[in-house]
């Protein structure tokens, strides 16, 4: 352990925010009861939605596969408790769009009977190949539990790159959220075990854990779990939002910048969340798929904020009820932290693999939204931008919808961390403008692709019609010319055409002839036999015609 003096590379900008984390870390992680109903969205990850492999009315057991992965960037979904499938339909899910999405709904039986799987956990996984490890991680339905939900098996494939460093993201920089902190305090050995498994899968030379310096207990727990190993380094980074942004953390620890629009993999670095590491540990050593996660229930609207170990698919309403939240006091419910989280309209939505925090704000704490004033170009936003963008210029171009210019100013490097929003004296919802610009550009590109295709099709059709017309005209002209010719002409044009065609065929035959035909180079005996047969045929032919 070389933790004493690791150089920290300081990323540009960022904000020191009020943490509000201690309100939810005073109690140990509590297990949430099995809900009466589980709502399991088919898409809890980035990539293609899983395909259901159960039908309504089927009985399912805990851990049973209920939806299969669809393609490479996809993961399966498992039943998180035993019961009966009562519906496969669109339900409210936690998503910024507030749209409903396809879910498998299970009525639980309360017995929580687990399925007997053939794939047993392996305490000694060292014999497994990289691909076997990745397959097991895929089969367990593991995605990045930090919030983005990218399928972990994809991120564990080096793709020909030499992986120098595997970084475990333990920063948890958003205010209020404390699920990773509590996980580290209580299950540090599982995290370290998961880290070792991922290290093996990636053949990573060394490992680093980046943790914000405000998590003292978690840091100590990890230190203890690491013991004397010297290939895992825990580095404390300053508590400055967004220290836990993947690129920001990589830079803080290594001084390397993951290329813009590229992946950290390209600079030999892979970054995973601590929760993901613990899930990998469970999947490999115990053979357990991802069925639950830790969720922070916090905010002024929750009487006793806490962290809970929740079965995936548990409706958020059940959790709020469990925490004795007065529904009439709820001013706003958010999924995720106050910076990058999103507002949830319907609390019937379930906890999914990416639900790290349910942030409930009391009605009395909701402030009236302020009206935005014109930008005064003070540049505060540029000073705090961790990507070193010029939000004041991006805003200008987003407002005037100059989408070429806005891309020159690197709109697509924006990580939507929200720092610029917080410091803006004119209270301009900058990130909202940038999201709008991004989606509009994407839409335009899709439309352009579509219209390009349509135009191509149209042009091809016009060409075809033109060709057909031309051919028709030519045929017509030929016919006309033929009719005009005198019938007493020496040669019948039809016959001539046939002759010409036959000649062409013959020429073609000669041209395409590759091997000598078996009627060439015959000896006398063969020739006589053929002659005989020909004569016989001629006889028969004559008979046929005669009769």
């Amino acid at each position, binding site marked *: 352990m070389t933790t004493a003096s690791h150089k920290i590379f300081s990323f540009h900008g960022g904000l020191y925010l009020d943490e509000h984390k201690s309100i939810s870390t005073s109690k140990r992680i509590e297990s949430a009861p099995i809900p009466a109903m589980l709502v399991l969205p088919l898409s809890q990850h980035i990539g293609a939605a899983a395909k259901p492999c159960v039908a309504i009315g089927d009985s399912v057991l805990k851990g049973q596969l209920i939806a299969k992965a669809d393609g490479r960037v996809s993961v399966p979904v498992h039943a998180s408790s035993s019961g009966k499938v009562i519906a496969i339909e669109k339900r409210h899910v936690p998503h910024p769009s507030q749209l409903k999405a396809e879910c498998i709904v299970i009525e639980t039986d309360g017995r929580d009977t687990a399925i007997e799987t053939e794939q047993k956990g392996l305490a000694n996984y060292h014999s497994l190949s990289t691909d076997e490890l990745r397959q097991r991680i895929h089969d367990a339905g593991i995605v990045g539990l930090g919030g983005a939900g990218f399928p972990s098996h994809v991120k564990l494939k080096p793709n020909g790159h030499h992986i120098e460093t595997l970084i475990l993201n333990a920063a948890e920089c958003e*205010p209020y959220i404390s699920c990773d902190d509590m996980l580290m305090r209580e299950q540090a050995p599982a995290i370290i075990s998961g880290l070792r498994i991922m290290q093996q899968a990636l053949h990573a030379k060394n490992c680093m854990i980046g943790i914000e310096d405000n998590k003292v207990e978690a840091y100590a727990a990890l230190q203890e779990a690491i013991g004397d190993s010297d290939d895992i380094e825990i580095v404390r980074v300053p508590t400055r939002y967004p220290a836990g942004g993947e690129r920001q953390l990589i830079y803080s620890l290594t001084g390397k*910048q993951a290329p*813009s629009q590229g992946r950290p993999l390209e600079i030999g670095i892979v970054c995973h969340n601590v929760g993901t590491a613990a899930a990998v540990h469970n999947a490999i050593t115990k053979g357990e798929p991802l069925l639950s996660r830790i969720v922070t229930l916090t905010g002024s609207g929750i009487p006793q904020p806490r962290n809970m170990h929740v079965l995936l698919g548990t409706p958020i309403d059940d959790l709020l009820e469990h925490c004795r939240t007065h529904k009439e006091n709820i001013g706003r419910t958010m999924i995720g932290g106050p910076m990058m*989280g*999103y507002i949830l309209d319907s609390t019937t939505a379930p906890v999914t693999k990416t639900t790290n925090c349910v942030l409930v704000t009391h009605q009395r704490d909701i402030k009236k939204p302020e009206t935005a004033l014109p930008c*005064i170009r003070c540049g505060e936003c*540029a000073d705090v931008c*961790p990507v070193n963008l010029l939000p004041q210029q991006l805003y200008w171009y987003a407002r005037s919808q100059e989408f070429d210019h806005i891309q020159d100013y690197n709109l697509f490097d924006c990580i939507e961390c929200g720092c610029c929003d*917080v410091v803006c004296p004119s*209270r301009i919802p900058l990130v909202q403008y940038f999201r709008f610009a991004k989606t509009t550009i994407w839409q335009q590109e899709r439309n352009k692709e579509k219209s390009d295709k349509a135009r191509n099709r149209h042009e091809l059709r016009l060409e075809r019609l033109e060709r057909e017309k031309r051919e028709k005209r030519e045929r017509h002209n030929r016919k006309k010319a033929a009719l005009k010719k005198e019938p007493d002409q020496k040669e019948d044009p039809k016959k001539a055409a046939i002759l010409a065609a036959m000649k062409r065929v013959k020429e073609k035959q000669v041209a395409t002839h590759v091997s000598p035909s078996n009627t060439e180079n015959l000896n006398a005996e063969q020739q006589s036999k053929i002659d005989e047969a020909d004569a016989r045929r001629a006889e028969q032919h004559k008979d046929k015609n005669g009769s």
Partner: protein
Amino acid sequence: MTTNTPQVPSSASVSNLMLHVGYALVPGTLAYIWLFGIGVLVQILLACVTAVITEGLILILRKRPVAQTLADGSALLTAVLLALAISPIAPWWIIVLGTAFAIIFGKQLYGGIGYNPFNPAMLGYVMLLISFPLEMTNWPAAFSLLEQTPTFQTSLDVIFNAGLGIDTVSGATPLDAIKTQLAQGLDIPATLISPSYGELFGTLAGVGWEVVSIGFLLGGIYLLFTGRIAWQIPAAMLGSIAVLSSVFYLIDSTQYISPLLHLFGGASMLGAFFIATDPVSAATTPRGRIYYGIGIGIFTFVIRTWGGYPEGLAFAVLLMNMAAPTIDHYTRPTVFGQGKS
């Protein structure tokens, strides 16, 4: 659609920013009033009333929220800056005309706060300087140099009944004196000890002016350390003035003004911390602000030294305002992940 914006309390606001810029002006302004008379305060009040009335009227015409917009404080700040830039004994209609021009032509016609390419106060100042050179260059000397300090009544008389008692108080600014004397072939050391102008010059720069400048410097430092202005513009501007004036002073101290007089004798401090830093019309990229500040410094020095006016700050600011968009375009910072890793 629900908008998802960060839900973190924040105290940042435009009116708050303007308010603190106002606080920062207090030491310099108090020194100015104390040393040059109550006329300064009268000019400030006249400017503020004019600014509020003008902006209010224009907002009504433009059908924009009046109270909310006036509350951002930017019109008042423009008014105060212009009032501080003109002579405390200028007739009342000078400041009224200048402020109205600054608000209407410098700001509202472009679309109000955030859209003006030029610093409104400096636009108003330059309009006045070109149109009314006589009234604009008639300055009082600091009290300590006068045999009789003007009373409140004298100040009002001077401002509202032009001409009355003006001879008793009027004089020239230190920079003006040197310029006039140089034009008449008298070199600087001679001016500094001349019977008619020598008493204008104090330990650092001009008597009275140096104290006012220090007051503005203190206010500027407050703004810097509370993060309300960026360091680049004042540092680059004062730095370039200091370097240029030092070089020329070392070459020939009889023909070129000393760096101290440059920094503390004119509007350098007010300009560097309060005028050049107006974010709307300045360059906005970190590197661009340095070039912008250097540009203002160079133009200020050039106009003071070789131009027709003793003080070149206003022209320098307007010239660099024009250059700001181009500077911004060529000084974009390297985005994270696009440079060398």
